[in-house]
């Protein structure tokens, strides 16, 4: 039996974000929210562990009013319980970790699972920060997880070797995208998830802004706009151009 808390992030659909042509900043309001991709792997990993060892999976999401749909997806994938903490103000891992830790302290757990870094802001800080606050050990970048009695063992793939690490529970494990392929939830579960209430609450933690986003702009790439019309010679010329650029 392992009781797991899985941290789920909501993010804008990156495919649908376009930079504002005048400022170069992303136009977020036009892009819908979805479950952050590596969070989806974390949920899948949590549900797989539950299916293997028994226990309960609780999803925890710090987000905004659109988070309900994402929580329902987590339910459909197999999470038993879930809490949405609203009033997410933006990318501030310092604050996010405090908010999440406050809630985590109230939930009985053996394991905390999360993505090793979010696909949208890519800080990768959360596991470490939570460890600092909660005093639980972190195993990072897991591609597989096993529970052995009171311990959790993970595999991490390094450049030339497979690295196995073990720690006692409770622990925090961050997973990589390679750990699994997130499931397609069966319809009955989707429908059950649709009927399941969303526990939504606010945090009492005060936000401390201790860093500032200076700029978030699409890099300006200058296109060469070369057109080769002679099909026979074209390939050779393209190769030449590429080789020169690579130098």
């Amino acid at each position: 039996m392992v009781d797991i808390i899985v941290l789920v992030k909501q993010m804008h659909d990156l495919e649908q974000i376009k930079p504002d042509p005048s400022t170069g900043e992303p136009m977020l309001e036009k892009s819908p929210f979805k479950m952050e991709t590596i969070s989806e792997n974390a949920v899948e990993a949590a549900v797989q562990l539950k299916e293997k060892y028994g226990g309960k999976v609780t999803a925890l999401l710090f987000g905004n009013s659109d988070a309900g749909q994402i929580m329902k997806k987590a339910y459909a994938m197999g999470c038993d319980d879930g809490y949405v903490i609203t009033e997410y103000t933006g990318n501030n891992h310092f604050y996010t970790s405090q908010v999440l830790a406050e809630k985590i302290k109230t939930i009985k757990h053996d394991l905390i699972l999360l993505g090793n870094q979010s696909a949208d802001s890519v800080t990768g800080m959360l596991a470490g920060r939570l460890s600092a606050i909660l005093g639980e050990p972190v195993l990072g970048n897991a591609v597989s997880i096993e529970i052995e009695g009171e311990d959790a063992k993970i595999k991490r793939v390094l450049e030339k070797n497979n690295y196995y690490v073990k720690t006692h529970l409770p622990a925090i494990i961050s997973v990589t995208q390679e750990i699994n392929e997130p499931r397609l939830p069966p319809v009955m579960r989707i429908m059950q998830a649709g009927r399941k209430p969303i526990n939504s609450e606010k945090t009492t933690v005060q936000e401390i802004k201790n860093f500032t986003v200076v700029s978030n702009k699409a890099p300006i790439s200058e296109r060469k706009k070369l057109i080769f019309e002679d099909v026979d010679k074209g390939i050779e010329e393209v190769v030449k151009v590429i080789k020169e650029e690579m130098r």
Partner: protein
Amino acid sequence: MYLFSMILLAAIIVSVILFFIPIYRQLWYAFRIPKVRKKIEPDIPRRIYILIRNVLFQGKLFKDLGGGIMHALFFWTFLAFGLYSLDFLLAGINPAFQLMTPGLFSDIVFFSVDIFALISLVDVFHSVIRRWIIKVKRYQGYNGFEAAIILIFVEGLMITYFILGVLRLDGVSKNIPGSIMEFLSPSVTPVTYAFATLLPKATGAFGVYAYWITWSIHASIFLAFLIYIPRAKHLHLVFAPFNVFFSDRKGAQLNRIDFEHETRFGATDIRDFSWKDYFDFYSCTECGRCTANCPANISGKHLSPRDIIWDLRVAVLSQGKQLMQGKNEDEIIKPVIGDPIPENDLWSCTTCMACVEQCPVMIDHVPKIVNMRRSLVLNEGKAPREVIDLYRNLEQYKSPYTIDPSTRGDWAKDLGVLDLSEKDGDYDVLFWVGCVQSFDKRNQEIAKSMVKIFNKAGIKFAILGKDETCTGDPARRTGNEYLFDILAQENVQKFEQKGIKNKKIVTACAHCYNSFKNDYKQYGLNLEVYHHTEFIDELIREGRIKLKSPESSENNSYTYHDPCYLGRYNKVYDAPREVIGNFALNYKEMEMNKSKGLCCGGGGGRLWMDEKEGKQMSHVRIDMAAETGASRVVTACPYCLTMLDDARKTTNREDKMEVIDIAEEVAARLL
């Protein structure tokens, strides 16, 4: 004599009981096991029509001429022998029971019996040659033993029929009870007469004994046949006529799931098939026409629609038997997916409907396959990786691609097309572009060609631009009815809100066309929808567009590839050929065309899946196209275009042929 009559009567009663016992069981299974209800509409005139066409005249059998003739001749013999056999047995019980009396009617009956007896006598050899000498591929490995028994039975019946007839004409049977046809003049049975004149005359006691023995053999074979029928593949003699009668006009169309009320989705075990499906199983004769025409099977995949139907039949018969003995349902009933039907086979299907089209007894294979896919997807969330990605895209981006949906209308940006997502306007025709033509560079050419054609014909048309979304076809055919339901409801709502349902809709995608024409009817949306081939054909007929006629110096030769969802699904075979007729000087049909057209490999969600097993279906098809010597392969569906154009490139035919959509050629020839 009395004793003989009693023995015969007892034998007949036993045989009839033995005949009906399995049929009673089979009916019990069909009406007790299924948990799905199947309602059928009365629709009597059509049912009578298909019964006459497909049973009496054996209509669908002639799709395979050799096998069709062989079967039809046996079938008609079987019909002709009906009254004869009844009369024969009745006379055996008591000569006074004979039904046939002298007159024109009995002359006609016995004349046809005589002729068909000869035909069947020969047809048995024809069958033997087909199965064991020429070795017709689709028979190999299937029930040769049963076929042999039946052929021996038939041949035995025909030989004894003629012996009895010869002895009758020899005059030995005059006063023997059980002899019939005594009153006929020899000219009514010319074949028997011919045999009688050729053979030495039988007389006296020898003749009488010979008659008795032959009579007994004839009767025994007949009764043995009766007992054998419901226990083997010849069960189709009983069920096929009913199956044809009860078949609906849906073919490969799928049913809608009511997610509010239903709790079992798709087909997991034998409880999830309807009584009509059971009739399908019982009607199968393992003739193998379905598999012989299945593109997956032809291209070397394990999928065989025949095996799927037969495996289900075996499951029904064995599990049904135990259920009838009162055993616990939960212990007896096992899922049919995995074993005996491999999951991989279910995913190999392109839902091209070739099997359904070919089946002489009107079995619907495709809905069963999709129902089993539904079971995997909806109950277990199981599907190939690519299909799960497809679902994600359909959910997130409302198209099969991971592409920002707001760019859907970008292809038309500089073409001056009325985009209803950007501004309102007056229009008569909604051009439904479809995902592939909106997002795929090569296929955008089709959409652009359509714009040229619309403009030339002076048609006020509009597109939905970024408000257009997938019709849901790929979700539905891969078994994700839930996702299809969401997409379909969104579209239906949109059509109603925007007042589109009162406009003409033209689409250049055979799959969107089928969705609008058939799938969406289940959502109460009746649209006036045209496939672009139909629409272009009409424009040409009305003289609204004119095409440059081919110059004699042109040396292009053409062939046409039938999209399954246009041809078999919606019976549009002529419109595209009429259009091609306007510009093609050299035109040649491919080996498999029209209702036999071989699928490109893109339907049923397969456009987005890897094809790892066997050969590429599209390669088989492009090889067929190459055999016609065509320099231009014309098609009328973006799926087909994608598959065949890829096949053309990967088989190194880039400089030998082009694959184009019909609209592209028309647009290029506009005057």
